[in-house]
């Protein structure tokens, strides 16, 4: 049943990178403002039309980043009357889409702007020393837990133990994702990659190799949402937000209820697909958070694309590569395109572009329905969005 207040995405934008670093010189907030302006302009709107502001980030903490929407609103000189600074890690932006969708349906806002920016690569600010050992982290950080890779490694180890998943299975994901990156002129890593290359890359935290891990880059992205009714007056190809769900279980990996099952993805995915009224066979393109190869494998199982324990078989034979049966992570993902700390924003941007038919060489033919799933923290949070060509 269509309704004039159904939420749609009407603008997306991301910042140009060269070698994983911003091309334009600006502060982290400057990059946020530039992509916000670009996304709003793509939608045929102006920043002064924005009455809903949603953001999450890692900048300015401790300090102005603690009140991220407030600081960003100040920088843009706007006065939003709906705000959401939900930060559940890299999946925050999928949750933001859900929250903006609810606010739009409710009439609580008319134009929602979701923004992310990080200059971690340029600043060399990626935290390598582990998380401050306060509260729950006092029981992990002092043991030399490599964060976040160690937690993902422990989940991979457990999945291998329970289901016989192999490092080759995980490498299939990295290789297929690189093939998509080779079709994306904006991707950071486009050189050829083989399964042997992944397996012979430096072991970081067993069983995860360097090439099982995402890139560390800068990045900024923005999404503009409004109602279907408002979108009629805009010269843009709206993408409908048909379903959404979110959940989280733990932060410290020691508190993960089952290290071989990604419960937040299961819960969020079920809810989103039910709301959208779609089944797995309706999904034409899938964008899944790939902080590490194991993240993808666990997500595929939890989202129900295959049975628990069968993820290794599911990704074998390059099924997720261009031309494969299951087009996934079509930008080149966090593994090969960009990963500015919280990648979920860029999954949404890529899905919107695919549904608008703007994928260029990497366009998935006939893509009408996309599933986007973000994971944040240490397999902690999950948020799913179902998008459809309007």
């Amino acid at each position, binding site marked *: 049943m269509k309704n004039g207040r159904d939420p749609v995405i009407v603008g997306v934008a991301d910042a140009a990178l060269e070698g994983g670093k911003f091309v334009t010189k600006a502060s982290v907030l400057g990059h946020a403002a530039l992509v916000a302006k670009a996304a709003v302009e793509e939608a045929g709107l102006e920043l002064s039309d924005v009455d809903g502001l949603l953001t999450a980030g890692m900048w300015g903490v401790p300090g102005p980043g603690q009140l991220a929407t407030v600081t960003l609103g100040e920088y843009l000189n706007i006065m939003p009357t709906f705000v959401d600074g939900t930060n559940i890690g890299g999946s925050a932006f999928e949750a933001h889409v859900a929250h903006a969708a609810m606010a739009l349906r409710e009439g609580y806002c008319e134009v929602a702007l979701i923004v992310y920016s990080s200059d971690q690569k340029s600043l060399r600010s990626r935290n*390598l*020393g*582990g998380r*401050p*050992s*306060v*509260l*729950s982290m*006092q*029981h*992990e*950080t*002092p*043991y*030399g*837990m*490599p*964060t976040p890779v*160690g937690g993902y*490694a*422990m*989940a991979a*180890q*457990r999945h291998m*133990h329970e289901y016989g998943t192999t490092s080759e299975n995980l490498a299939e994901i990295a290789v297929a994702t690189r093939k998509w990156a080779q079709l994306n002129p904006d991707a950071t890593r486009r050189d050829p990659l083989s399964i042997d290359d992944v397996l012979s890359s*430096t*072991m*970081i*935290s*067993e*069983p*995860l190799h360097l090439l099982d891990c995402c890139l560390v880059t800068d990045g900024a992205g923005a999404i503009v949402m409004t109602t279907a009714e408002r979108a009629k007056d805009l010269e843009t190809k709206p993408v409908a937000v048909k379903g959404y769900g979110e959940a989280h279980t733990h932060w*410290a*990996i*020691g*508190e993960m209820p089952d*290290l071989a099952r990604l419960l937040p993805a299961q819960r969020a995915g079920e809810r989103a697909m039910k709301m959208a009224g779609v089944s797995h066979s309706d999904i034409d393109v899938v964008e899944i958070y790939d902080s590490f190869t194991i993240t993808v494998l666990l997500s595929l199982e939890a989202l129900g694309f295959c049975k628990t324990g069968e993820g290794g078989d599911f990704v074998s034979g390059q099924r997720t590569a261009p031309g494969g049966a299951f087009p996934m992570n079509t930008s080149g993902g966090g593994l090969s395109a960009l990963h500015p700390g919280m990648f979920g924003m860029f999954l949404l941007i890529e899905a919107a572009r695919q549904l608008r038919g703007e994928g260029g060489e990497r366009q998935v033919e006939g893509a009408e329905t996309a599933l986007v799933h973000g994971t944040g923290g240490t397999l902690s949070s999950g948020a799913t969005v179902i998008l459809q060509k309007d």
Partner: protein
Amino acid sequence: MSSEKPLPVIDHDSAPYWEAARQGRLDIPLCGDCGKHHFYPRSVCPYCHSDNLRFETVSGRGEVHTFTIARRPAGPAFADDVPYVVALIELEEGPRMMSRIQTDDPEKVHIGAKVEVTFVKATDEVTFPNFKII
């Protein structure tokens, strides 16, 4: 060296646990209502949400639930330790706790390996429960 490594910021929930470790005991909270042990120590039972909790000394035995061999250190403070084994230990009493496996041969560590607690003094205030394969 050890003085440069991150130390736990001890709080009211965790103080009895760290004090016991300093004295060479593994004490974790036990719920007086549902009868379950939990870890990490909280002021409310994570299972039944009772606040009727007390610390109890446990066996110190368990098994490796999962682990990773860190080939790259978690920051410069751990550089001298590489390779080292960080493991999630499932205690006989049920809860899981993160720790280190003390071993000369990280390759021998496997899921399901039986382990026993051993205490490693870091400072006058902090002693870490680590585990050894038995």
